[in-house]
């Protein structure tokens, strides 16, 4: 089933074109990667997809309705259904609120839960993202970057969305935490069929977690292919990113100099 449809979308800031004629369909339950170098327009597309900005040209449809003309109640359902986790966790969390308040916010505004049900859900979310419950009374400046990013992930999962958009949201986590979040998302996908849009420049995450990859280059979609092992890109932009993948294991290299003995 089709979750979101992007149709002929172009966007610009001042007179600088950022996106040009983007068309894309996101299906329920799928893991889709949006891959591209810095400045290619990935994050702008994410902002358009969740309705933070309206495209200069073209339309984005959710359940057959364009985001531009959506009735108020439907807009609420849309916000419950599509959630975004930003790259920069520090600027995405109010430093004056406690973690408990941050997680309660989407529950209060977007769901009809009793106070008790909210607290149960908050505890469940903390457990899901492997955070200690003692952190609930902490405020963002008291958390590490990795902890705060997981709070933001928990906040996005609070409303049980059908599409989760992760805008480089794993880049700031170390590998051990990254692996934990990927395990959690895989589990959620099996349990509830949540769809994920992974915005990244790291091909290794794409190969592990995604079924389809859309390569962006300079505001265009360069290609849209299924993830195979190994990946076979036909676009130059995709191939350049593939060549840039770091090795898994050290390669034997010519001995540079012998280490000196102390």
């Amino acid at each position, binding site marked *: 089933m089709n979750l979101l449809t992007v149709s002929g979308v172009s966007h610009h800031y001042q007179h600088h074109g950022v996106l040009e004629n983007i068309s894309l369909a996101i299906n329920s339950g799928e893991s889709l990667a949006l891959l591209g*170098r*810095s*400045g290619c327009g990935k994050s702008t597309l994410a902002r358009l997809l969740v309705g933070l900005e309206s495209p200069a040209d073209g339309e984005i449809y959710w359940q057959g309705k364009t985001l531009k003309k959506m009735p108020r109640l439907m807009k609420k359902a849309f916000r419950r259904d599509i959630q975004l986790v930003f790259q920069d966790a520090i600027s995405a969390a109010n430093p004056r609120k406690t973690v408990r308040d941050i997680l309660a916010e989407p529950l209060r505004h977007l769901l009809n839960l009793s106070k008790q049900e909210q607290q149960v859900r908050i505890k469940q979310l903390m457990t899901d993202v492997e955070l200690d419950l003692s952190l609930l009374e902490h405020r963002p400046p008291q958390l*590490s*970057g*990795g902890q705060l990013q997981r709070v933001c992930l928990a906040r996005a999962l609070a409303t049980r969305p059908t599409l989760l958009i992760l805008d480089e949201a794993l880049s700031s986590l*170390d*590998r*051990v935490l*990254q*692996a934990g979040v990927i395990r959690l998302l895989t589990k959620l996908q099996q349990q509830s069929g949540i769809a994920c849009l992974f915005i990244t*420049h*790291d*091909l*290794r*995450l794409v*190969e*592990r977690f995604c079924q389809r990859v859309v390569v962006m280059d300079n505001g265009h979609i360069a290609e849209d292919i299924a993830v195979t*092992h190994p990946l076979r890109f036909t676009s130059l932009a995709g191939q*350049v*990113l593939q*060549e*840039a*993948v*770091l*090795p*898994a*294991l*050290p*390669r*034997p290299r010519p001995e*540079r*100099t012998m*280490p*000196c003995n*102390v």
Partner: protein
Amino acid sequence: MPSQLALRNITLEADRCLTENVSLTLHRGRVLALVGGSGSGKSLTCAAALGVLPAGVHQTNGSLQADGQPVSPQALRGLNVATIMQNPRSAFNPLHTMATHMRETCLALGKPADDAALIAALTAVGLESPERVLGLYSFEMSGGMLQRVMIALALLSEAAFIVADEPTTDLDAVAQARILDLLENIMLTRAPGMLLVTHDMGVVARLADDVAVMENGKIVEQGSVGSLFAAPQHPVTRQLISAHLALYGMELTP
């Protein structure tokens, strides 16, 4: 020029103990990677080697030795030890052009600061149209370009040792790969001793000869990159390697 630079039993304290008896040895021509989770003390260890500890942090034990002789970090910094910092965006003064930054370094080192020398330095790090780059401000450049200028500044001193603290962390995958190619090339042509601080085992696999693993202010394991990837011993190392290999769909053999 010393051929070996050693940190011996560096202990740093603030309100609590931050690093304890950290010993590392850099050899010319080899890359030593210092890895570990955030807050494990990697960057503080670098700061101790450079003599730039933040306010409130005191070194209560240990010394820096060049070829076995005790030296002060201040005597080496900038001349024998050059630095490549993590965030090129905030490392440059936004009010000055790249040419001004480079001339400042040249003057401090007593080297010629004419345009030809600067252009040669920029060409050496693979920057296209170096004449244009000289006139640019940091906000007019990409992260990858800025990091190349930072490396050019580090190379101007022809230092025997380079401390590179997360040199590619803020770059996209393609810019990262190109900077790592450049560092590899510098190792082959100039053969400095490099201390490479990183949290990405892919960077370690790409560039390092030796690895030291840090946790809670202590070095918990040290060895050649081959042995560390093939047979990690300490639980922290095993966790780092297995999380890294999982990204490639591989598993750590027990």
